[in-house]
């Protein structure tokens, strides 16, 4: 069972208390964006075998959305962090670099 720490209410929540919300850090497109940008935003998803950043909602808890950094190849959790940010915090990036040097994900590395 996947267990994620909710950064808002501080609970270590079981997977059954959570709802997965897909890829994190999507760049929202709007009027004036190109077709390519819209295709990326709406349909293209990072699908790495390795480091992944995701949105989760503590649905049977505090109800808040947060972000998680996970490995899809080992199910290791690197950490969770606030959804009120445009990129993963440096301490989580450092933690990932510790075990997976040279990793990259979308525009982050």
């Amino acid at each position, binding site marked *: 069972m*996947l267990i994620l720490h909710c950064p808002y209410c501080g609970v270590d929540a079981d997977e059954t208390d959570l709802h*997965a919300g897909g890829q994190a850090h999507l760049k929202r497109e709007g009027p004036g964006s190109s*077709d390519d940008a819209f295709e990326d935003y*709406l*349909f293209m*998803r990072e*699908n790495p*075998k390795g480091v992944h950043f995701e949105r989760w909602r503590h649905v049977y808890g505090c109800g808040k959305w947060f972000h998680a950094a996970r490995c*899809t190849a080992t199910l290791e959790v690197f950490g969770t962090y606030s959804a009120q940010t445009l990129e993963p915090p440096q301490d989580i990036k450092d933690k990932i670099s510790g075990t997976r040097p040279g990793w990259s994900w979308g525009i982050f590395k």
Partner: protein
Amino acid sequence: MKRYSAFAIAREAMRQHTGWDRAWAKREPKKKYDVIIVGAGGHGLATAYYLGKNFGITNVAILEKGWLGGGNTGRNTTIIRSNYLQDPSAAIYEKARSLYETMSQDLNYNVMFSPRGVIMLAQTQHEIRGYQRTAQANALQGVKTEWIGPKRVKELCPIMNIDGPRYPVLGGLYQERGGTARHDAVAWGYARACSDMGMDVIQQCEVTGVRQENGKVVGVDTSKGPIDCDKLGMVVAGHASVLAEKAGFRLPMESVALQALVSEPIKPCMDVVVMANTVHGYMSQSDKGEMVIGGGTDGYNNYTQRGSFHHIEETVRALVETFPMISRLKMLRQWGGIVDVTGDRSPILSKTPVDGIFVNCGWGTGGFKAIPGSGWAMAELMAKGQSPLTDEFSMFRFREGKFIDESVAAGVAH
């Protein structure tokens, strides 16, 4: 290749079974092939088989990272049906189902196709309307399905409790010629036929890179060295995104785990396949007597071929209401596979941004039933550059807004 037959069994029985050939040859890669197929699962092998059979292209290698049929081909619940709502889906799935009817004869390999009938249960008013609509659509598409009432459901499957307190059975969409087949045998049969045509099935050969010149594919780098090719078919299901990245393009899909389980073997009690989509469970009985049970996917990306335990619990709990007799069954084993799910839950059979590379993926939770049709269509696409069966399944359909919306009609919760 020596043909399998009753006579062959009798002949071998007389001489201690010493005369059987290897089903397919063990080969090392040549320097160059006309076509390389990556992925020796059902879809990849079927693609190679129909390239040879329908288009005479036999200078083909099928590369497999693990072992033959060891991915989703060996991990599904073996259900075959074609009762889809949208025309493009019905066309390719019905092509597949009809090819299953004669596959054992075509391949001279017993794939144990058993058209025992498939019932998709309607347990809400919404499902009644949905399945009646699908039955009408199927009639127009030439796919034989029918809407049946609860009494007929009970006749077809007496172990079912149709008066469940939460979700009573209100009817069902019945496809009489749907059923099951032996999943491993489908891969083995195609591999044997491909090998017989002179194709090389190469296992434990992982593709590590895709070589291109001027926007055209020229070969692949593998764990057994570089191999050149004119055309490359990527048929790797859950790892499609990983392979596409090596070729320098992205696919609109995500990989998640889907699980299945079987019970201890019991006496024959159920001779149809039943899918209960409202409660996310489906069940059939294998020839060994095990109840074969499948459920829904996890909600998050995963490449580990193991899913969350609570999905197993939810699936079994849901089925117990409709099949009270399974409450005392012990579950024998459980496994997971990595399925590639696209935005509209329909597959991708398509050209790609790289000239000479074709992709066949995105079958998600329902790929086994499609194997022969998928291979047939993919072979035509690769040989001729176009196929009426794949036109609608382009990877570029998303940006054009031409979705094939089967989220409701597909059997499994996504």
